């Protein structure tokens, strides 16, 4: 039963996120005063990629592509979706973060396995950026875990029940800011799209992908976005019923899109420097406030 729910979650994630990706492109276009693609354009792109021929650079190139998609789909199963938890109690924060890393590792391996130095440079940038955004995000959630004594995401959603005043967005405003900046980094949206910079390093890790490999990587990207935005919605906006969850999800994702639509791109050392300057300091302040004063957890309204 749990496995069927998991499969259903994967299907929902695919339909919803790919649809929203079309809208996201439309919103970017509107910000830039364009008309933008049709809403189902991303479906077309993915199906087209699978219909094309492809090349293989060897075993690890294929294996990595399967590993990255498999690992990311497995992570979708563990993320609570509007109160639906496939495996009760196993939606642990650290499990989700590290299972998501399986996907990143598979992609990195596959990309470097192609033998293209641009892929290596892109992977180097992606890993460096990961060091930047993960640490502040984990510190904020660390404070939450200490505050409520649980690292299960659905339990962290439950404590925010009962109106928007209980959301962590208001209880832990600094943490929410850090979470959002880290989310932008995770999504690799501008100004943090350094790893896939198409004009500098020919789209980085993706440089050698074509046909079905590219299709799988696009799918993996959509699932990863579903997880990352879902984490933010669950942790800071209190999850909610299906409709509420999807609305919050769309709002967060489109907000990130609007910001990224007007920005340029950081250099990679600027990304790390930036993440370790402001968000890390804010996250430490937030964690200290939660751990030492209890403000936002025990002391709230």
């Amino acid at each position, binding site marked *: 039963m749990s496995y069927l729910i998991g499969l259903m979650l994967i299907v929902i994630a695919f339909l919803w996120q790919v649809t929203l990706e079309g809208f996201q492109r439309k919103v970017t276009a509107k910000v830039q005063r*364009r008309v933008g693609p049709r809403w189902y354009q991303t479906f*077309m*792109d993915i199906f087209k990629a699978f219909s*094309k021929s492809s090349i293989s650079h060897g075993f690890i190139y294929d294996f990595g592509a399967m590993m990255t998609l498999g690992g990311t789909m497995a992570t979708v199963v563990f993320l609570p979706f509007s109160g639906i938890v496939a495996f009760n109690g196993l939606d642990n924060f650290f499990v989700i973060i590290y299972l998501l890393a399986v996907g990143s590792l598979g992609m990195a391996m596959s990309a470097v396995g192609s033998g293209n130095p641009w892929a290596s440079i892109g992977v180097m940038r992606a890993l460096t950026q990961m060091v930047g955004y993960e640490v502040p995000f984990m510190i904020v959630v660390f404070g939450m875990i200490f505050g409520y004594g649980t690292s299960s995401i659905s339990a962290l959603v439950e404590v925010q029940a009962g109106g928007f005043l209980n959301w962590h967005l208001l209880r832990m405003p600094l943490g929410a800011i850090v979470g959002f900046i880290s989310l932008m980094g995770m999504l690799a949206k501008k100004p943090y799209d350094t790893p896939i910079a*198409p004009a500098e390093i020919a*789209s980085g890790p993706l440089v050698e992908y074509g*046909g079905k490999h590219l299709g799988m990587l696009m799918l993996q990207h959509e699932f990863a976005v579903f997880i990352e935005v879902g984490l933010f919605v669950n942790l800071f906006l209190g999850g909610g019923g299906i409709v509420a969850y999807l609305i919050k999800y769309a709002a967060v994702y489109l907000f990130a899109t609007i910001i990224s639509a007007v920005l340029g791109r950081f250099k990679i050392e600027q990304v790390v420097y930036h993440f370790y300057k402001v968000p890390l300091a804010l996250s430490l302040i937030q964690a200290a406030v939660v751990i030492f004063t209890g403000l936002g957890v025990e002391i709230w309204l």
Partner: protein
Amino acid sequence: MAMNNDFNEINLNDGDLNDTITFWDKLKNVFRGNSLWMLHYCTGCGAVELPPTMTSRFDMERIGMGPMATPRQADVLLITGYLSVKTLRRVIYTYEQMMEPKYVVGFGSCTLNGGIYYDSYATINKLDYYLPVDLYIAGCMPRPEAVMNGFKKLMDMIKKGEATGWKKYQRHYEDYYSPNQIRSLGEVYVKDEFHE
């Protein structure tokens, strides 16, 4: 420089290359026709017409097109103007790295007959000798409206299964494209900064 009459003329359109027979083929062609990624490979002066085509004024993304950085991801190769012999080698290499089905669009008169460079010692005159061109966009240079119109036409061709240049290239590589390429480029010697 090889002259036009040096090339062997054969009928490239022999046999039926249209494979849109089964339902799945038709479906695939619908996807391919609605999502066309171009390789942002610019030669000659036509490149300057592409930024307006991509950005706010004409917005290429509305018909499902977008620029791609690598030939592996791209579906359509744009030859935007004259091709020097030196560039031709790179274009052929790039074309061969693209995934099938792949399409070639020639911009302007330079790709048709050499244009104003028709008597240059360094440029080729007719692109079709070397690569299978699916569609030419006339003009010197074509305005973005014409470019958009051309892309629309290409998409219709793909949906109908008429854009079969990549099959022509497969079928006639040995007897047409390869000899032509060698005739213009000469033998290829390994010579780059690491081999001196």
